[in-house]
């Protein structure tokens, strides 16, 4: 348990470090700024520090980083409060194992293909034209719900290993959000991770029938006949 607690602290610190470095290296203009005065040339480290603090690009990066993190967390909080039962079902479906997660990813990828194709083909007929927008919205909302469940379950899983599971679900969400957000900030790999995360989220939401926990079935219609 003590090992897990140490691990969580290390993971959280690593996540913060990744975010800090990504914001710092997102814009390298401060690094190439000429050292104007003689004193600055004599102490380049101080000059670079000053340049770093004064650089507008770096400031923007940090602002965007903070805004993104807070927005993602707040969206998660909103989903948790709006549909707690559904998030609970989705989180339990995720907790089964890695093979299930791969299954959800496969569902998400195939579903994205189906929705894209149906959306594209729907524009050929006048009465199905709004389907493109409707399907995009549905896919986005389903993915959002799934991503929140994934984030919450990651945080909850880690905290329960460390014996801190008695805390608020918001703590689990905060930890999961910090880790996932840091992963998505890694240059080049971040976009790939983000796409995988959202596709898996969509897969989880659809596999659990938008968190209802009921199976997809047309049995009631078969009973009619």
């Amino acid at each position, binding site marked *: 348990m003590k090992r897990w607690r140490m691990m969580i602290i290390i993971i959280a610190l690593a996540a913060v470090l990744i975010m800090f470095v990504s914001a710092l290296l997102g814009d390298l203009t401060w690094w190439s700024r000429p050292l104007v005065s003689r004193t600055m040339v004599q102490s380049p480290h101080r000059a670079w520090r000053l340049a770093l603090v004064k650089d507008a690009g770096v400031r923007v990066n940090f602002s965007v980083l903070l805004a993104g993190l807070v927005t993602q967390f707040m969206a998660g909080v909103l989903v948790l409060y709006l549909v707690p039962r559904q998030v609970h079902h989705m989180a339990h479906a995720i907790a089964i194992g890695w093979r299930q997660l791969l299954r959800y990813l496969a569902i998400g990828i*195939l579903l994205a293909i*189906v929705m894209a*194709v149906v959306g594209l083909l729907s524009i050929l007929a006048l009465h199905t*034209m709004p389907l493109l927008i409707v399907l995009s919205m549905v896919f986005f909302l389903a993915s959002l719900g799934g991503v929140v469940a994934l984030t919450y379950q990651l945080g909850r899983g880690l905290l329960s290993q460390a014996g801190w599971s008695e805390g608020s679900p918001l703590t689990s969400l905060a930890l999961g959000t910090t880790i996932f957000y840091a992963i998505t900030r890694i240059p080049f790999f971040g976009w790939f991770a983000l796409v995988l995360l959202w596709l898996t989220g969509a897969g989880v939401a659809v596999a659990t029938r938008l968190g209802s926990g009921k*199976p*997809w*079935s047309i049995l009631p219609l078969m009973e009619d006949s």
Partner: protein
Amino acid sequence: MADWLDELLEVIPVEPYPPDLVAQVQTRLANSRRWSRWARNGVRLVMVMAGVLGLWLLMPKVEILLSAVSSISLGRLEEWLSAVMRSPSDALLDLSQIAVTWVSQLAAGLEAELVLALGLLAIPALYGVISLLSSGISQEEAII
């Protein structure tokens, strides 16, 4: 009082079970299972072939789809948001015009070959989704 079922049982001729009844049932069950396995594998093969054919047909046409998507940019979105701040009704009208133009451009670009490719791609994808969704539930509850 004799039940109607008792009367019926008296009428039914009593015949001995054929000696190979169990073997016959087992053979029929094995045949049925083999047939359904063959059918499932056949459907999977057809789906994979349809998917590959769809991708093969789609590859040369990707440019048309990308050119339609490229018209939506962050700059245009920013322009539209600032227009919303100025006058929401005008911005909404503009958006509907842009949407109609974009959709008509895309529809004009959708050739028969492309539509066929998209259809060929969608069917195996949908089959995959259904298979994956119904793999976790019992046969009675299955989607198909």
